[in-house]
């Protein structure tokens, strides 16, 4: 499959009065055409910063890309200027934000907010763009689109606004859609509808999607692959099956154990991960998760773990995969879902870093 996006050792930091916040610390992943990658992780783990950096939407300054590459269709966008980025934003890569109540301009008609991208990227006339805006609104399932184009955001409900946001994002047929918690602010039934809509549109348009969420329940529903982020790093990445049925990183275990699920109906307590994420101004020595990790080894406090490869598609960054590491049992909630996956290597392979 064709690779549309390759992120290599991306590092992003923010200059603040308290020092430099290292929000993204060496993130690498890639994305194929038509694929959906979910990025999960606690609040503050750097999901939004990572994804916004791909469009260079982080405020610079204080933000700064301190290292790495972002190859979009083989072309590095890190050195691109704002003018060059304008041709990519909205046209090649689009973004849907978390809060549909605040991400639409309150004093501009919905129709015009959709038309803007069309006029800019597809050189459409106003009439043609308006016609297309009506089509897009009906495509995202908004009834009476001819009337709705002329309305303002406050006349739309939350779910409809998010549909309108999707229409805006998809207006110019982007190759990559980044959805930053697109359903977090919506109630559950609307969430399901929006997810259905996104899946449906993806299959029609063959867009790749980066789907950010901290809801693992949503992940199983939409994603092909999952990247688990912690403290600015990807600590585990694999297909949905690998992450759900053969997780290897204690942080992923923690996330899975704290996930409420229907089949989890015996009186098992939801185990919240204790403690709080580290301060990214001074990331701790060793493994950033060590302090909250009851499986932490002595070396976790000394040296950052390397990435191990468990299958062709499955990676985890933990010392537990080292050949000399003690065998540990994942928490019960996780253990009972573990299955033997056929693609797993006999032993984890250390991923050599090519610096």
């Amino acid at each position, binding site marked *: 499959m064709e690779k549309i996006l390759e992120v290599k050792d991306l590092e992003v930091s923010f200059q603040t009065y308290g020092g430099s916040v290292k929000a993204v610390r060496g993130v690498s992943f890639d994305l194929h055409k038509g694929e959906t990658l979910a990025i999960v992780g606690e609040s503050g783990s750097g999901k939004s910063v990572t994804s916004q950096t791909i469009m260079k939407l982080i405020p610079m300054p204080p933000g700064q890309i301190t290292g790495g590459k972002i190859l979009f269709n083989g072309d590095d966008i890190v050195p691109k200027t704002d003018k060059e980025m304008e041709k990519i934003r909205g046209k090649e890569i689009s973004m849907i934000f978390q809060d549909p109540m605040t*991400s639409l301009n309150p004093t501009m008609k919905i129709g015009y907010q959709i038309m803007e991208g069309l006029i800019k990227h597809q050189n459409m006339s106003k009439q043609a763009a308006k016609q297309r805006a009506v089509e897009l609104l009906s495509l995202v399932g908004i009834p009476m689109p001819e009337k709705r184009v002329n309305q303002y955001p406050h*006349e739309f409900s939350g779910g409809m606004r998010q549909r309108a946001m999707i229409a805006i994002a998809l207006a110019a047929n982007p190759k990559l859609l980044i959805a930053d918690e697109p359903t977090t602010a919506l109630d559950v039934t609307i969430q399901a509808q929006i997810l259905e809509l996104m899946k449906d549109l993806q299959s029609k348009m063959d867009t790749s999607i980066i789907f950010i969420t901290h809801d693992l329940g949503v992940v199983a529903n939409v994603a092909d692959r999952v990247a688990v982020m912690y403290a600015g790093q990807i600590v585990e990445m694999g297909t949905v099956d690998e992450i759900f049925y053969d997780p290897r990183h204690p942080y992923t275990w923690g996330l899975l154990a704290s996930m409420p699920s229907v089949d989890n109906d015996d009186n098992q307590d939801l185990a919240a991960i204790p403690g709080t994420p580290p301060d990214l101004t001074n990331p701790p020595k060793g493994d950033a998760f060590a302090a909250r990790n009851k499986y932490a080894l002595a070396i976790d406090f000394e040296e950052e773990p390397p990435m191990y490869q468990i299958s062709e598609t499955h990676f985890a960054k933990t010392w537990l995969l080292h050949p000399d590491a003690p065998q540990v049992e994942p928490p019960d909630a996780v253990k009972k879902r573990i299955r033997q996956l056929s693609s797993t290597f006999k032993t984890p392979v250390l991923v050599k870093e090519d610096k």
Partner: protein
Amino acid sequence: MAKYIGKRLLYMILSLWLIVTATFFFMRIAPGNPFTSEKQLPPEIEANLNAHYGLDKPWYAQYGDYLLKVAKWDFGPSFKYKSQSVNDLINEGFPVSFILGLEAILIAVAFGLILGIIAALKHNRWQDYTAMIIAVAGISVPSFIMATFLQYFLAIKLGVFPVARFETFMHTVLPALALASTPMAFIARLTRSSMLEVMSNDYIKTAKAKGLSQGVITVKHAIRNALLPVVTYMGPLTAGILTGSFVIEKIFGIPGLGSHFVTSITNRDYTVIMGVTVFYSIILLASILLVDIAYGIIDPRIKLAGGKKGE
């Protein structure tokens, strides 16, 4: 919309009635009468004068007469200038004050907005600091000091503008500048903070994510939303320009309504004081109504009550 405006007009009339009543009674409470400053008038003459102006009637009759006349847009004769009515004074002075006030408002709004927008776009850079130094100076220097300052440097030292009077356009520049300086500074600061607030909103990020340029984002998405608090300030701005004009017209020797008003107060010219107060109130109330209508046009979320409901 028409219904809304009708309702507002009704409220305006109510407020005006309160204002007329209040001024009428304050005038009566104030010690002295219009004829006290003149030398000891013989009692017969004073009685005659009082009878001529209706001051011998009981207060409720005077009050009723006055209300009736005001309703007919007749503010009565001036007590001091025998040949002139208050209406004459207003008709004569207001056009001059209107030109001065309008010019000042235009200067304040135009330059205030420009300074504020530049400051916000160049946040924490030298442009921002420069604009804000100008704004702080504008706010802290009172208009009468600004006036003398402008007269001294631009008129007397450099001779670019005439020192006083009100004949050509050049005559209007200095008083309008003096009058505009404080509100301009206010608008600049208001616009700056409002722009900064708007630029940090999510929808600006949405606009950027669409691939729009900084210029388009500023003009189409930011300014309109940033303008809302500035529009709200237009009411107090009009009031400020009105009161500011009293002093400025005196300093520059401009024959406007403001200077008539000041003179009438020292003269205890009751009818002029009351007439001009009522007139000023009408202007203020009208400008507040205009501001509210403008607000409703700029911000679609505000449906003017009684207006057509959007579904």
